[in-house]
């Protein structure tokens, strides 16, 4: 799509106003007819623009199409870096290091993230946590959970894990055993397979280009 948001905005407003005016020639500005037309025209114009933009958006958010990482991102190192042009942090995908000591093929990776997503929904995680900032506010935002410095500084030694994925998995399988604050995450009875898949899903999510949200993640927190 080659139009800026300002062009779209101006076009939407003018189109609504002009079509309404043409349809309502001769009607007074407070008349029933004019406002009925305004209602119909604005509904149609705005819905049309929404559908058109949605088409563009859907095409741009396919995994691997740029903003959304491919499923195989779980095999890679992920980081955040300052983008001097956009002036916020963007995820960067680094070298292939494997996930739980294994390189996943694209099909395997997709199946694993899928399992993680379904598990996420089945346990209703979103009614305690936010992801991409949406959900409930009882527990931390999970958008960049995979990149949280606490896994290395606190959790890995606590659960006796060698890697971040192992630490996340062990923690998730029994959170009440390692509480970090006053609020406690319950044990949701995750199986080994489900916990692995959830970690994959969280890792994949951390590489989504979110226009810089949450702002300067992990750049200022006490570790």
């Amino acid at each position, binding site marked *: 799509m080659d139009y800026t*948001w300002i062009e779209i905005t101006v076009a939407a407003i003018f189109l609504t106003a002009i079509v309404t005016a043409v349809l309502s020639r001769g009607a007074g500005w407070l008349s*029933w007819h004019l406002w009925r037309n305004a209602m119909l025209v604005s509904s149609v114009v*705005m819905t049309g623009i929404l559908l058109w*933009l*949605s088409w563009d958006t859907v095409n741009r958010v396919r995994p691997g199409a740029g903003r*959304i990482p491919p499923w195989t991102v779980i095999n890679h190192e992920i980081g955040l870096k300052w983008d001097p042009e956009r002036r916020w942090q963007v995820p960067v995908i680094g070298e292939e290091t494997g996930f739980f000591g294994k390189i996943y093929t694209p099909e395997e990776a997709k199946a694993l993230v*899928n399992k993680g997503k379904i598990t996420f929904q089945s346990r209703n995680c979103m009614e305690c946590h936010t992801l991409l900032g949406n959900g409930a*506010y009882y527990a931390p935002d999970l958008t960049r959970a995979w990149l949280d410095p*606490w896994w290395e500084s606190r959790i890995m030694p606590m659960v006796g894990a060698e890697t971040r994925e192992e630490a996340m998995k062990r923690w998730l399988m029994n959170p009440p055993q390692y509480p970090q604050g006053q609020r406690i995450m319950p044990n949701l009875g995750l199986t080994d397979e489900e916990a692995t898949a959830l970690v994959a899903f969280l890792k994949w999510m951390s590489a989504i280009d979110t226009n810089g949200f949450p702002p300067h*993640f992990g750049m200022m927190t006490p570790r």
Partner: protein
Amino acid sequence: MSAVTQGQPKLYESQKLARWYFIVAIALFGAQLLFGLIAAYQQINPRFLLDVAPFMTNRTLHVNAMVVWLLVGMVGGVYWFLPKETGREVVGITLAKIVWWVLVAGVAVLVGIYLFVQYGPGKMTTLWFIMEGREYLEAPRWVDIAIVVWVAVFLFNVIATVLASRRITGILTVLIFDLVALGALYTAGMHYQLNLTMDQFLWWWVVHLWVEATWEVLVGVLMAWSLMYLLGVSRRLVETWLFIEVALVFGTGILGLGHHYFWIGTPEYWLGLGGFFSSLEPLPLVAMVVHSVYDAGAHRLGTVNKPAMFWLIAQAFGNFIGAGVWGFMQTLPQINMFSHGTQLAAAHGHLAFFGAYVATVLLLVYIAFQNLRVPVQVPLDSRLWKWAAALLILGIVGISAAFTLSGFTQTLIERAVGGSTWAAFIQGYTHPWYANTLGWRYFFGWVMLTGYVLLVIDLASIGKKRTA
């Protein structure tokens, strides 16, 4: 005030059904408050019921009860006014009554699943039968299908009645188009999406395009009827205002959807589009205030039903403040980047849902219950409804104020200063500015519950030996 009484007017079957709808709505309102109180207490004492009914269970019941009772209440309002508007009994009323039973049974089963099953294994069957796990849309797929069937029957009632009456009004035109859109939008939320960005993209089609577009218009329709009934405002005037409001609601709210597409992986043009159009969303809400205050003034508040009149005015202001002001507060991307996903959204959610929708449903309930028993007193009035209204409003204002403070603390400490990590989150909720709000929220929850009890008593005693 001299109390005039009148005989029991004959009710249409559809109006009797409307009363049953309102009874379900009010009962679920009570359930909503109860689970909200438990959720609020769990934020104070996180070990409370941790193993029996964890936070997500109570919160799910809290928000789902809300969505269902408000929708049930508004549908009830349409069943109430439709025969008056068309001058005939609703077509397919038997079917509608059967669907009411199915609705009650479905809600009971769903509450049972939420409370006692809570969640399932990470399989597709869980999403179909137990839990879909998306905020507001937790209901498993079978419930989604049931809801679509329910809305379809309702839509059939409306359209068939209008056709049979051979009378189409501006209000009915708006109603029919709005209900078609409302039902169609719900199906956008009925798909499993592996890609989380697409998942949330479609999720907002339901959540935002319901509360900020189609529900808002449905409320406009119900308000139009209520104004005509309560004050005797002329149809021409009411319809013209309705058109202005719909033009503005759809003109700003449809692209205003973009304020939820800032940070979920969708392209950057949504930052500008969403910010611009959503910041204009308060416009129709201002128009509604002007409209109702003008009409009330022009008719010198002379009405047949005092509590209904009160909730009508409360709706206009509540909608403007809760949705318009508290929404605007966090809708520009430069602010939302820091406030997104904090309890500031919950502050706005409480004020807006209460102001826009709870007030509407209470208004409708009072209208429908006015003639519950003979002799009917005109204007309907009592001491109790004033206490109920005052406590409900005090409660929601207190809860929202507490959420505003905790959201402000999260925005500042967790997001802006702390960088949104796990540690920053703990820094946020243990900060005194946040921690101190928890007790207040809980306290005002009890205030609200008290108001609710008075409301139920008042409704149950309408027409029983009343002296104004």
